[in-house]
């Protein structure tokens, strides 16, 4: 048993247990923190697979930016365990059963899939030099289109999130 296998199992246990923590914890802030831990475990997997660029992007964009956005909104809305809406026991059980059935179905279909040892396939395509060459050569149009997507998302977020115009109703309230 070499060091790679040990690290793989440690990161896997961390990812799965923290993912369970996300859906089981009552306090939404705890859920966000568990999700950050899950993302850190996934980042560890990327490092193990020598995908260094994606590892650092995952850490900065997902665990850094997106999760801080979630935490920020949770704290802005002042949500905690007391106001957390809970589904009935029956609906929760139905959710667990349907998720478990999906797990079983896909497990049965991939049971006979070909196994390839990851050690033999160690290579350097995850480095930023090779990825950048492919990105700006083959995928340059999707790259540019994604910048338009970002611009439209930014405008959309501002338009949706801004304060609405003062209506007659709120004028009465203010005065």
């Amino acid at each position, binding site marked *: 048993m070499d060091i790679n296998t040990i690290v793989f199992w440690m990161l896997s246990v961390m990812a799965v247990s923290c*993912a369970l923590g*996300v859906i089981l914890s009552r306090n939404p802030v705890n859920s966000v923190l568990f999700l950050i831990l899950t993302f850190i475990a996934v980042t560890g997997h990327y490092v193990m*697979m020598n995908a260094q660029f994606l590892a650092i992007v995952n850490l900065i964009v997902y665990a850094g930016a997106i999760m801080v956005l979630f935490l920020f909104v949770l704290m802005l809305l002042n949500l905690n365990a007391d106001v957390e809406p809970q589904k009935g026991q029956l609906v929760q059980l139905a959710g667990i059963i349907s998720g478990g059935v999906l797990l079983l179905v896909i497990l049965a279909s991939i049971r006979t899939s070909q196994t390839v040892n990851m050690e033999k396939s160690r290579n350097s395509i995850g480095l930023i030099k090779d*990825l950048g060459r492919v990105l700006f050569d083959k995928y340059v149009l999707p790259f540019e289109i994604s910048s338009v997507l970002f611009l439209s998302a930014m405008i959309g977020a501002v338009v949706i999130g801004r304060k609405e115009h003062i209506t007659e109703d709120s004028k009465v309230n203010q005065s």
Partner: protein
Amino acid sequence: MPPVNSTHYLFLSLLLFSIGIMGTLMRRNAIIIFMCIELMLNAVNLLMVAYSQLFHSADAQLFVFFIMVVAAAEVAVGLAVIVMMYRKVHSVDINILNRLKH
């Protein structure tokens, strides 16, 4: 314990995806459901990176990069929608949003 192979990554990613599905079905808080969707996206990303290493192809890693781009844009708009919803109904409970049913 056997050395790590591709099936291990397949099972791990499947497990994370199923946990995301269960969370989406179980919870009523709109933000938690959103986070479970992020969890599912990450499970798929993990599998794509593992298979890009196996097949020596950089394309899958670039697809992961584009998935992250779209997820970031989606989170910005989605959280704005949730904040607007909270301003209107003072709750993030998705069961309040059933007016189409009545």
